């Protein structure tokens, strides 16, 4: 039986078991919305207030579930509004399928109404993008998109479908298999390299595991925990690498990099073997490349061959799925030497350099973080926006479950928090979701509060209002003699009141003695709630390594 292109799109989504679709309509995609209306059973259509929000929401959904987030938008402005969301997902390796409508094939290239060359625009920020010009290619293209989005190193894929293709008809057949001569992600690490790495670990005195986002992406958190427990090798993690949790809490962990802990950065600089798992060694982690981990040989495991040797030179490269490599390492059951003197040294560093802050009259954000951590249940999902608030969340929520710390790491996209929180809640409705945002980033996508209301999602939001684009102000404070140029946010409304206008419970907190109790109210609220916390204006995030400086120069004030 022949089926219209628009219907085929809907059937493909069902074949892929898509349960949530972040969609915003427009001229050329009306046929798909029409089919969704009639045949979209099982697919929850979530309409954001802006396509950027929809894309971040799909991203948040993908980050907590591991399944691809799916977005449907119209051509031209609808498509271009997704660009920031796609770039955010791309750099953090988040699986996503973005379906954009396009003007009819015969108008492509004529500057037709609402035409934008979205496959051209999205070229450098997608893992793959496809312009479907023939109805026969439609189902195979969608199959290809879903397959590529989730396999190997995940990433966003964009499928651009002209209106005439949506209106044309053909027999619907969803390919079972996807196979290409070209696209073959590596799965198994090379046995010799895998063995060599283990050999080096058994001969190290001061080995250190650097856990990156690849661990949770590949679903190997449990394996990594087992491996850490078994070997007693201490570990540090990146922003994307939250969620590692060895049962031996005495084993020091800590985050590293620009706002890493003193002892974390110290451990990197003093280890003799760095075992990097699923990290791309971003400049925020490395600081100065030359003086990074100067005493260490480096083992680097990653599924993407292009990441290996890109930013640092590696002694033992292993291209492969972390799961497989960790399984092999655990199976080998290799006796390890006693690393306890080294572990003890890190532990002493930790004890000597705890995270500190001073809570006087004005509320400081670190104190708020501590109170939040106390008030919320342990299986909380933290979703951050970008800036100082993100770094404090990173430092104070040492999340101990995978896929529970959602943050725009690589792109650092302000405005990510609230919409990503929506996606996270839709992906994990049983878990508590707390969005932590600054006053700047919150205002970039705050219209999505309406989406929260509309979808009746009990998302909790905490806005840390320091009246500044705080992170930029901090750089101006430290490196530009306090010339606070372009960073003042002096017309902030009362966000709690704003929330109430939009139908969401809101509360403003200005005094230190209210914080703990307000946080309990936020945590226990059955419905969505926004807590607007007025915090100290000029608090800085420490530890800090200046951009491009050595991790040796981790400053604490």
């Amino acid at each position, binding site marked *: 039986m022949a089926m219209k292109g628009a219907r085929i799109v809907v059937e493909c989504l069902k074949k892929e078991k898509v349960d949530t679709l972040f969609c915003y309509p427009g001229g050329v995609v009306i046929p798909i919305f029409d089919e969704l209306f009639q045949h979209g059973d099982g697919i929850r259509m979530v309409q954001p207030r802006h396509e950027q929000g929809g894309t971040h929401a799909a991203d948040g959904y993908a980050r907590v579930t591991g399944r691809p987030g799916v977005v449907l938008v119209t051509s031209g402005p609808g498509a271009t509004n997704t660009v920031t969301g796609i770039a955010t997902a791309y750099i953090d390796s988040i699986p996503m399928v973005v379906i954009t409508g396009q003007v009819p094939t015969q108008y492509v290239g004529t500057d037709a109404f609402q035409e934008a060359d979205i496959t051209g625009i999205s070229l450098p920020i997608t893992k793959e993008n496809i*312009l479907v010009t023939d109805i026969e290619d439609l189902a195979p293209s969608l199959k290809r998109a879903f397959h590529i989005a989730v396999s190997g190193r995940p990433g966003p894929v964009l499928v651009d479908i002209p209106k005439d293709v949506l209106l044309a008809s053909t027999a619907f057949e969803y390919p079972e298999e996807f196979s*290409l*001569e070209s*696209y073959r992600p590596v799965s198994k690490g090379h046995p010799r390299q895998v063995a060599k790495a283990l050999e080096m670990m058994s001969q190290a005195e001061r080995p250190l595991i650097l856990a990156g986002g690849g661990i949770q992406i590949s679903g190997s958190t449990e394996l990594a925990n087992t491996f850490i427990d078994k070997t007693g090798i201490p570990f540090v993690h990146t922003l994307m690498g939250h969620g590692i949790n060895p049962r031996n809490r005495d084993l020091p962990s800590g985050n590293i990099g620009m706002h890493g802990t003193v002892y974390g950065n110290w451990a990197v600089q003093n280890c003799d073997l760095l075992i990097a798992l699923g990290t791309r060694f971003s400049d925020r982690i490395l600081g100065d490349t030359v003086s990074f981990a100067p005493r260490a040989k480096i083992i680097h495991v990653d599924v993407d061959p*292009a990441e*290996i040797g890109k930013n640092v030179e590696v002694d033992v490269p292993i291209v492969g799925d972390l799961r497989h490599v960790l399984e092999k390492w655990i199976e080998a059951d290799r006796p390890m030497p006693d690393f306890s003197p080294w572990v003890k040294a890190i532990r002493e560093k930790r004890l000597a350099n705890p995270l500190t802050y001073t809570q006087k009259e004005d509320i400081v954000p670190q104190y708020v973080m501590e109170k939040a951590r106390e008030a919320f249940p342990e299986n909380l999902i933290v979703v951050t926006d970008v800036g100082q608030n993100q770094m404090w969340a990173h430092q104070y929520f040492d999340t101990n479950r995978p896929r529970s710390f959602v943050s725009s790491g690589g792109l650092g996209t302000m405005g990510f928090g609230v919409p990503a929180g929506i996606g996270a809640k839709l992906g994990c409705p049983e878990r508590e979701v707390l969005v932590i945002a600054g006053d700047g980033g919150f205002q970039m996508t705050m219209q999505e509060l309406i989406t929260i209301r509309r979808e009746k999602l009990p998302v909790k939001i905490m806005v840390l209002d320091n009246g500044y684009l705080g992170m930029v102000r901090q750089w101006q404070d430290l490196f530009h003699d306090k010339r606070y140029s372009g960073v003042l946010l002096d017309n902030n409304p009362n966000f709690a009141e704003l929330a109430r206008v939009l139908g969401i419970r809101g509360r403003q907190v200005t005094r230190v003695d209210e914080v703990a109790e307000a946080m309990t109210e936020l945590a226990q609220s059955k419905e969505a709630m926004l807590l607007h916390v007025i915090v100290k204006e000029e608090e800085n995030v420490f530890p800090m390594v200046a951009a491009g400086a050595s991790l040796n120069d981790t400053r604490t004030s």
Partner: protein
Amino acid sequence: MANTNLSEHTVSILVYNKPGVLSKVMSLITRRGFNVESVSAEKTSGDKTRIIVAVKADERSLEQIQKQLYKIVDVVKVTPIDPKHRIVRELAFIKVKNATAIPNTSNMELFQLVDVFDGEIVNATPSGFVFQVTGSRDKINSFISLIPETLIVEIARTGIVAINKWPSQDN
């Protein structure tokens, strides 16, 4: 990445002949900061196209570029062409004015030059000529440099095609 020891490298890239694949390849190469010296592309067999690109790069970034190219879904194979063991050709057309238009030059000299370079005169009119030369980039560059600049009206070059030789029998 430090741009030390830049030299010209040739990479042969086999891709699925899909719309946009050439722009994907070129955009990737330029985005990662490589200077493209030459590019040629032609459908080879069935559903595939071979793209040959010459870039200025150091050894390490050359390796990076190959790995990055493999991330394009339609890229089937990336083969670096060994500079010591390759066959390279480029073809160029050079349109020149009739030399009698300019003092101290003669067409005879031009024709001799074409002869020395194993070229051909593929078009001849009273107003001027079109020469064709083939060979390495260097050979074509020196041919062009020997023709008085004022005579040259237009140059069209194919960009290089290159292939690795069979391994030699005697070593």
